[in-house]
């Protein structure tokens, strides 16, 4: 029993990262109607930024977020101006198709670039307190992953407030709901796209940092994280960042449960099953609007 509880707990902890990884993808897809399949590679790049911030600058891994998030936002601005800004000029159907092509191309390019620059080796961040564990009622909670979950939750909460209160946050939500109506209220929709994409990339950077702290980073983690994020986006639906976070937690727990019930290899299967079942039974997702 306690073994199962322990596994579910670990699933919950990684689920927070799924939620954070999915939030950026969900924001970009919801607002720009562009499916950025290179989102996982952006997470990977964020992971390397964090790795080098810790290795070269000697920053505390969590403090490195203060560097990685702004850098990722800048990367997002550059990618929007260089690539995705052209995609959003097409009508919505063409957008999704073109964004898939561009996204896959970008993913391959970033993966190759990362191998070239940093080799294909796995890297992780090792801190003096990295191995600390809290024991609660027979469960051991790794401190680093617990802090990661808290950070992920705080970031999602911050994002939620940003979208609810900030003038441009409301503009982003309005654009997501109906971009023509947004134009008619005087919102520069392309600026809303730019901001949403930059914020989404910043979230990817944050997710990459937490992934590297809690687990490890290598050039090839991108696809796996894109898939996890996609599953969570489908499971949770568009329109609510808190909902996306909860969707991430659910996926983490479901993976742990299926690994416990059917054995390790089935961890990956449950997400795909959820993906298909949600699309058939409730296409707008659990919390979708």
């Amino acid at each position: 029993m306690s073994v199962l509880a322990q596994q579910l707990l670990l699933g919950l902890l990684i689920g927070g990262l799924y939620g954070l990884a999915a939030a950026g993808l969900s924001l970009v897809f919801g607002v720009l109607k562009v499916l950025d399949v290179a989102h996982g590679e952006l997470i990977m790049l964020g992971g390397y930024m964090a790795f080098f911030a810790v290795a070269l600058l000697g920053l505390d891994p969590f403090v490195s977020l203060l560097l990685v998030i702004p850098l990722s936002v800048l990367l997002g601005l550059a990618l929007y101006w260089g690539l995705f800004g052209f995609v959003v000029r097409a009508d919505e159907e063409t957008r999704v198709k073109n964004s898939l092509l561009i996204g896959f191309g970008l993913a391959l390019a970033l993966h190759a670039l990362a191998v070239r620059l940093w080799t294909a080796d796995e890297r992780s961040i090792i801190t003096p307190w990295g191995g600390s564990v809290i024991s609660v009622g027979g469960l051991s909670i790794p401190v680093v992953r617990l802090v990661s979950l808290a950070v992920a939750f705080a970031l999602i909460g911050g994002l939620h407030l940003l979208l609810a209160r900030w003038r441009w946050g409301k503009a982003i939500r309005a654009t997501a709901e109906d971009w023509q109506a947004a134009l008619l209220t005087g919102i520069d929709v392309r600026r809303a796209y730019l901001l949403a994409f930059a914020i989404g990339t910043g979230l990817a950077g944050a997710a990459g940092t937490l992934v590297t702290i809690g687990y490890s980073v290598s050039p090839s983690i991108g696809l796996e994280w894109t898939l996890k994020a996609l599953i969570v986006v489908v499971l949770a639906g568009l329109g609510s960042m808190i909902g996306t976070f909860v969707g991430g937690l659910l996926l983490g727990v479901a993976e742990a449960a299926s690994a416990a019930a059917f054995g390790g290899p089935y961890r990956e299967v449950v997400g795909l099953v959820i993906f298909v079942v949600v699309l058939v039974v409730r296409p707008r997702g659990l919390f979708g609007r």
Partner: protein
Amino acid sequence: MLEIRDLEAAYGDIPVLSGVTLSVGPGEIVALLGPNGAGKSTLLNVVAGLLRPRAGSIRFDGADLASVRAHLVVERGVALVPEGRRLFGTMTVEENLELGAFAARARATRAAGLERVWALFPDLRERRRQLVRSLSGGQQQMVAVGRALMTNPRLLMLDEPSLGIAPRLVRSIMESLAEINRGGVAVFLVEQNVQAALGLADRGYVLESGRIAGHGSAADLLRDPHVRRAYLGPLAVRE
């Protein structure tokens, strides 16, 4: 105020408007009538900047409007209440109205604008915290008009504001448009409800198959046998 000359517009290869010339003067209420598919909505969308014209000119207060991007058309003082209202359904009444004051020029007059909307539609004030999608069609239309009003327009364009609304509320919407007009806002109105539109308007144009097929004062159009037969139905002809 609004001067449209020889306007041509198309969706892809399908021409929708050809050689449309019309004008709306300061403080006027002008109705645009015509059957479904005549291009009325397209005309409004072109003026609002949602669709680029193929040829012709659109001038507002003498300045070119045809090449201005949609969110900047709003900044110039031209607002559109689109067909089907197009509100932000997951937001509250107040949030929808506040988004109307997003443009820089409108932000300065936001508080006054909100008061103006509350005065015009007292029902909305009580429901300010309600989600828009929980409102009735008529109330939603009020929010749509209110949102456009929040942009502080000098020309208010409306695309079928009476569509899908209880007849009792149609009159109240038309009365509020007259009230808005008395405040100095010119109104350009597309309507299927010809009786209501011409009851309100000073002048009207008839658009058929993308061309202006007639224009005149509202009283003349109401008497015109062609308009009566085509848009007011057999009952109107008999009476």
